[in-house]
């Protein structure tokens, strides 16, 4: 391998390491996964699936909802966060969410955070506290 190729390979490796978040997903700095300004958060799950005891409450937690309601922008009458079932019909949704739901997922429940500070997509956090802490990194 020539020296030039070695440099290219090392550069790619560094880029991969930066992009890969420690939370088990992919953090992409300075780019939005969801094509809309401001913080957008989407969780996709299969409703009725038994999740671990501490993870299950993320989906219904009032505290999580309060944080999301205050952090995500109101666009017309809709807000910038959604918790979808994987089989939910999308014909009544805005294109922003249709596009986000169409992205490939490796597992469920799956989390997407998209903001002006960067984006994340990967498995949902293990409990309410770690989810809120994770989210805080993307809130202005």
């Amino acid at each position, binding site marked *: 391998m020539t020296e030039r190729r070695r440099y290219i390979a090392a550069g790619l490796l560094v880029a991969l390491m930066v992009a890969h978040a420690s939370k088990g997903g992919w953090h992409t700095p300075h780019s939005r996964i969801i094509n809309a300004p401001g913080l957008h958060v989407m969780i996709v799950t299969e409703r*009725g*699936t*038994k999740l671990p*005891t501490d993870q299950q409450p993320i989906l*219904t937690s*009032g505290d999580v*909802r309060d944080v999301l309601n205050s952090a995500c922008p109101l666009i017309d009458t809709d807000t910038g*966060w*959604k918790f979808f079932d994987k089989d939910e019909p999308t014909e009544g949704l805005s294109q922003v969410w249709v596009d986000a739901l169409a992205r490939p997922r490796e597992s469920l429940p799956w989390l997407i955070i998209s903001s002006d500070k960067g984006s994340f997509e990967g498995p949902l956090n293990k409990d309410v506290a770690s989810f809120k802490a994770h989210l805080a990194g993307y809130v202005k």
Partner: protein
Amino acid sequence: MNRTVIINDDNYREYFHPIVDGEMRKHGLIPRDYTTHPVGCYAAAKPFDIPLIPESEWAGRLAAQIAAKAQLSDVRNRGMGGKPIPSRDQDGKGYCWAHSSTSAALIVRALDNQPYADLSAFAVACIIKGYRDQGGWGAESLEWIAENGIPTSQFWPQQSMDRKNDNPEMRANAKLHRFTEWMDLEPKNKSQLVTCLLLGIPVVSDFNWWSHSVCTIDLVSLEPFQTRIWNSWKDSWGENGTGLLEGNKAIPDGMIAPRVMTASIT
């Protein structure tokens, strides 16, 4: 009133025909006949198809849910732009069985954080019953909602029984709010009820002892066994429209659990 209501074996007769805001409240449940309408008979409803949560896990999961303020009442209390979703009002008609499923629809939409839609249960009941004030059971209304949906009050005003409401615009709006996945639970099956509530699934609940259908939203405690129901007697009944059922009185005779609805921004 706005106080905690706990209904149990000792006091349940007091709640047969309570006076709320000076009006006698009605019910309207016709008990589902499981010999003619067995579990699984509804085309759109699968029988209960998720693994039961073992009883050994109930206490731990309930404690985690309460600690995280993660019950469906917490979802309801933030479901209208951060404020509580108003209780439905069956307005002295025997339409509880359409209001219980409509309340469940409001919860399912709130779970997704779909914008609040002021869904009108009278549309469902009036059309099914030919505009007559007649009783029914929860699954009857859910089946209709799965096929036709529920309109908002913009297209069918709350408590209206006017036939002119049934027009193409109303039908188109209703289609935006359809159930697409729901489970038909076995009657009186406590394990299925608890599993749904611990997984954040509302349960449309028919209580034969009460001749009433309501939406069960929370498991409150295991000893004594208590659930929180969301009634359709306006917010002035109980605690913001909700009350607690205890012991045998908390186990429904008929149960339907809607999981998924069409998503819409209106």
